[in-house]
């Protein structure tokens, strides 16, 4: 898919922006998944899908450096974030990513505007009024232009998720991770968020990695996906979700896309 490269990384060499190789995660004796390998191309909307408890959110935490995998390696924009050198690369990598957590994870003691301003204040030399202006614009982009002065406790779940996206893209990172953006939202708000993701990809040329199990969202936004499975403890399908829906013969994949009980 052709996208603007204006805001993507300067290392635009056709290399994947994410490369995961043989990644595995165990908690004690319990294996969540193993041998998970995939690549994410620049500018695509890549979805990690699967049933509840298959390790989608855990994989996301590995990709953003919140947790170290028990095996395998992860490269973000050519820089390895795992292994002995990972810790040294992580601060640089974190500057290039934005993360929206499932609950929005807005800072409760700050207004929405202050939440979005925080990364700008921390990492740029912009004067406060410029930070405010940019933060207002970002909130306007996600439809929260009128809610800038509200506290996180005063807004709905859907608004919190949108504000979380605004904060994640405050510094215009080339790579955005979204954890369950449409979970628990009504279909209209959920569709609005899907539209927002596609618009931002179009306008900013960003790459999106989205963790979700919402079928409608997956089919609406994903260029490619991987499907994790709890029983297989790993990836059971990779590709365009629409193609998987129509052609996959894997029983769990078919059941997932056809909403059948396993």
């Amino acid at each position, binding site marked *: 898919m052709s996208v603007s490269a204006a805001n993507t990384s300067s290392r635009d060499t056709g290399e994947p922006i994410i490369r995961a190789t043989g990644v595995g995660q165990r908690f004690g004796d319990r294996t969540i998944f193993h041998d998970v390998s995939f690549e994410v191309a620049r500018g695509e909307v890549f979805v990690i899908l699967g049933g509840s408890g298959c390790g989608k959110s855990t994989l996301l*935490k590995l990709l*953003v*450096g*919140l947790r170290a995998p028990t095996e395998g390696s992860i490269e973000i924009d050519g820089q390895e974030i795992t292994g002995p050198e990972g810790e040294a690369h992580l*601060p640089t990598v*974190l*500057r290039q*990513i934005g*993360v929206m*957590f*499932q*609950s929005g*994870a*807005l*800072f*409760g*003691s700050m207004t929405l505007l202050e939440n979005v301003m*925080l*990364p700008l*204040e*921390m*990492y740029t030399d912009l004067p406060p009024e410029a930070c405010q202006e940019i933060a207002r614009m970002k909130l306007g982009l996600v439809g929260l232009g009128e809610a800038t002065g509200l506290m996180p406790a005063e807004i709905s779940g859907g608004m919190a998720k949108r504000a979380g996206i605004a*904060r994640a893209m405050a510094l215009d990172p080339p790579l955005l*991770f979204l954890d369950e953006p449409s979970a628990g939202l009504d279909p209209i708000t959920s569709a609005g968020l899907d539209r927002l993701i596609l618009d931002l990809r179009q306008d900013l040329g960003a790459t999106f990695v989205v963790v979700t199990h919402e079928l409608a969202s997956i089919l609406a936004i994903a260029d490619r996906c991987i499907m994790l499975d709890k029983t297989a403890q790993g990836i059971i399908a990779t590709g365009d979700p629409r193609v998987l829906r129509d052609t996959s013969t894997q029983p769990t994949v078919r059941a997932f896309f056809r909403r059948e009980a396993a």
Partner: protein
Amino acid sequence: MDSAAKASMDIYQDGVTARLAFAGKLDAEGAGAVWREAMHAAAHARMHELLVDLHHVSTCDMAGAAFLLALEAEHGGVARFIGESSSIDALLDRARKAHRPPPAPVPPARFDPMAMAVAGTKAAAEGIAFIGEAVLAAIHLPSRRRMLRVRDIWRYADQAGVRAIPLIVLMGYLIGLILAFQSAVPMRRFGADIYVANLVAIALLRELGPLLAAVILSGRTGSAFAAEIGTMKVNEEVDALTTMGLDPMTMLVLPRMIAVALVMPAMIIILDFAGLAGMTTVMVGFGFPMETVSIQVKSWVTAGDLIGGLFKGLCFGLAVAAVGCRAGLNTGVGPRAVGLSATAAVVGGIVATIFLDGMFAVVFYRLNL
């Protein structure tokens, strides 16, 4: 509930076959009414065939199905159900599919001094590592000064110090009052009641002022720090900070520790003065002029007593704040975890304070302070 509709059970023994005949409603209430008797009968019939007669059961819900399966399990062999309606049959099928054997019981925790010692050592090592991390964050502060939000420091100082003043004054005054009164009664017998002023002043400035201020800080502020940071952890706000490349130690822990370091000396001085006021009240009540009390205090108390007390209090405050923040950052998953962190912060704060106080007692004694 209509008592006639309750379940009833009859037991028939026919050679090698035991028949349990149920009647009425096999719902939660009905099953409950016959549960023990039925299980006893099923266990008793282990050497025989078990027939479960459901001819006269009018209704059966999932509780009833669970009861029938439990009956079968109690018997140990296969029970034969007769006379059940098609709906009960379907319900039993569904219950069988949903049935999972109960997990193996977890053996009760035994008192294991070695395991406790290991856990205690591990906790102490983690505490020391946390202090190390805090020191490292303080060293790196010049390059991360943007992460230290001055506004947050004032907010925490207000929360930990300014809002605690009424409680500090009340506690200090009452402690001074009680201490003076309790010591005056026996000392009067020796005609030494004038020295109550000296005793209370020294005790307050050197020991009780910093100790009480730390205990109040632990109960009010240590727990609040743990709950605040713990809630942030549960709400993934700490993860959000980390993924922004912002150091939680610098953003969350240092401002709180700095705020406590700022307010603790003031809290101790206020508590000391309130305590002296309480003591003076008692002394004046016993007929000593205020000037006499004042001279007694001035002649005995040195600046070293006050400074020593303030230094101790500062260390107590930093320990309480660090323990509270650490408890918050170690919060597990779910709302219960926040409560546990708050409790750990209070207990840990008080234990750390007493431990440090003991160390100071030895050090001050060796240094003749």
